[in-house]
């Protein structure tokens, strides 16, 4: 067992995938963005440079290439960089990849992984701070993984790169890169899709948190514990497929729920999770289902304003207190 950063965990998962299956190739390898943790990914280029194709700034083009290559025998991972850049390739990601299997009665598979760094990163401003996970969750046929810890990053990357036959969106975040956690390198560590994890047990309130919000939820739970509120943190880890059973089991236990995701509120991940919980956990609920998400505003440049609209541990704490009295 070893303490690692998320960047190290993801880098390990990528390297192991490249080692184990020669069909795994990379289009772009700019993981880690502009963060100081990006050096954790350097071994990928060091060890597997011949498996990396560095494309021009042509997202529509190179995502199409990845999809075509996936349909014809390769297992490409596309390092898209900033989540907003995936908008350039939207017709390919949302309107080509997901139809392959369905439209061919299962004869054509498309095992491509689109990796992107989403969300509010600090001075990204309006066009580089998008959180497209909600849009992708609205697209049938796309698998959607949202790791929030180093072990989950490693394990989920390995599963989608090596085992899955479905086109996958791998949601990463610049502010996840330095999150630490234990990873057992001796274990293969592949994480099955559709299995949520209770990251922290509790009895008073359920916090369902996604991606970068997992660490913030755990921070909130720590603080709440000192004030006598026992919070259970449930991390879905994958949104497609979704482990509803684990979430609803927690809701049945606590009766009070806060859902946290870093994308805008309207028709967002938090809204969907809240709707599911309100409908399927109807009998268990003893309080409103609170959503913690970015308000419906564009992302401003200035640090203090940006912080003002970023869902934080503090927001989660406030939401919990509103429903636990």
């Amino acid at each position, binding site marked *: 067992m070893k303490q690692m950063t998320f960047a190290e965990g993801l880098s390990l998962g990528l390297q192991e995938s490249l080692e184990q299956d020669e069909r795994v190739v990379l289009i772009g390898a700019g993981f880690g963005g502009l963060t100081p943790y990006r050096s954790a990914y350097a071994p990928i280029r060091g060890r597997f440079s011949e498996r990396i194709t560095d494309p021009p700034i042509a997202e529509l083009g190179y995502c199409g290439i990845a999809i075509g290559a996936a349909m014809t025998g390769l297992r490409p991972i596309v390092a898209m960089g900033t989540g907003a850049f995936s908008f350039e390739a939207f017709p390919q990601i949302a309107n080509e990849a997901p139809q392959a299997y369905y439209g061919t009665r299962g004869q054509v598979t498309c095992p491509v992984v689109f990796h992107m760094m989403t969300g509010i990163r600090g*001075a990204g401003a309006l066009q*580089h701070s998008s959180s497209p996970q909600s849009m992708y969750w609205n697209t049938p046929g796309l698998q959607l993984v949202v790791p929030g810890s180093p072990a989950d990053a490693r394990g989920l990357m390995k599963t989608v790169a090596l085992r899955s036959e479905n086109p996958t969106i791998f949601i990463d975040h610049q502010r996840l890169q330095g999150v630490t956690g234990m990873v057992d390198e001796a274990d293969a560590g592949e994480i099955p899709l559709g299995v949520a994890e209770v990251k922290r047990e509790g009895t008073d309130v359920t916090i369902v948190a996604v991606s970068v919000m997992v660490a913030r939820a755990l921070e909130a739970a720590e603080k709440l514990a000192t004030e006598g509120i026992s919070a259970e943190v449930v991390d879905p880890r994958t949104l497609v497929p979704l482990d509803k059973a684990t979430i609803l089991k927690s809701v049945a236990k606590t009766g009070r729920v806060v859902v946290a995701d870093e994308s805008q509120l309207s028709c967002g991940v938090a809204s969907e999770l809240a709707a599911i919980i309100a409908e399927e956990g109807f009998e268990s609920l003893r309080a409103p289902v609170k959503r913690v998400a970015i308000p419906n505003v564009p992302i401003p440049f*200035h640090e203090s304003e940006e912080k003002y609209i970023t869902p934080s541990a503090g927001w989660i704490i406030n939401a919990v207190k509103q429903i636990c009295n």
Partner: protein
Amino acid sequence: MIPILSRDDLKLALRRMLLIRRFEEACIIEWHKGNVPGHYHVSVGQEATAAGVSAAMDTDDILFSTHRNHGHVISRGADPGKSFAEILGKATGYGRGKAGTLHGAAPELNVPLSSAIVAGVLPIAIGAGYAMQVKGKSNVSVVMFGDGAMEEGAAYEAINLASLWKLPVLFVCENNGWGVARVPGQASYHAPNLALTELIDLAKSLGMATTTVDGVDLGDVHRAAKQAREQGVAGEGATFIEVRTKVWPGGQWPELVTGITDITRAWTGEAPAEFAHMVDWFKHDDPVLQVARELNATEIFSRDEIEALDAEVQSQMDQAVQFALESPMPELETAFEDVWPA
């Protein structure tokens, strides 16, 4: 060459070039002090492009830019204090702290927008040209962008549409040699990620007027922009201008790799001792030194005049930095304002 401009307009062009240079130096200095948030892009080495194009433009022409916008905004007469304040995210900036460096603008000077998505600005800029055509205006829409934009599909569509409808648009492509992947390609001048031999070939094959100019030469830039503007206003359609500038190595993670500009180097052409290896820059690749050199050599301005102008500009920039540093942060609740007009 010297642009065909009045003495006053020549002085204004030089003033703007000096201001852009001092502005970018201030950016780098303040970034090293920790005062500039995020990632930003400087236009050192591209001052003549901004100044030359602007000198050919009318006040009612509209200019669009990208993430590398500082020089363009300044060249249109933006207040350096308000521009710098925006880079620091202050309430007194042109965007009230909402836009930052990536979306530098000066709407009241007809610089409404900089888009930071590569090539995103091209279709928008041709739209302004379309509006001018519909409204019968004698203006042009000018879009400043880099060679990287030519890698995106949006560029193709914008050039095709502008050519098809003879829109009054100047496409000014600054080929500064900073292609994202530094892999040698086929192009005759940088642009490593394009299968084009000449960057202008795409526009040319789509029936557009094209030209390639030397970005260190203020007169060359101005002449091309002026001609393109005249053609656009006369209804003869858009022009694609490739401006070639030299790579300024300090651009990647902005660093003062040629030091703070000493205008007297224009007279000597010599590099300072600590930057001795940057021979070419000081001799002929720095547009600011080169333009000053030419204006003096042709006796349009004396060395004293130019040095005095530079001192004035430096002082103006110092005040702008002070203003920006002392400006207040935006009020937090303004994060919810300006989403919609009504």
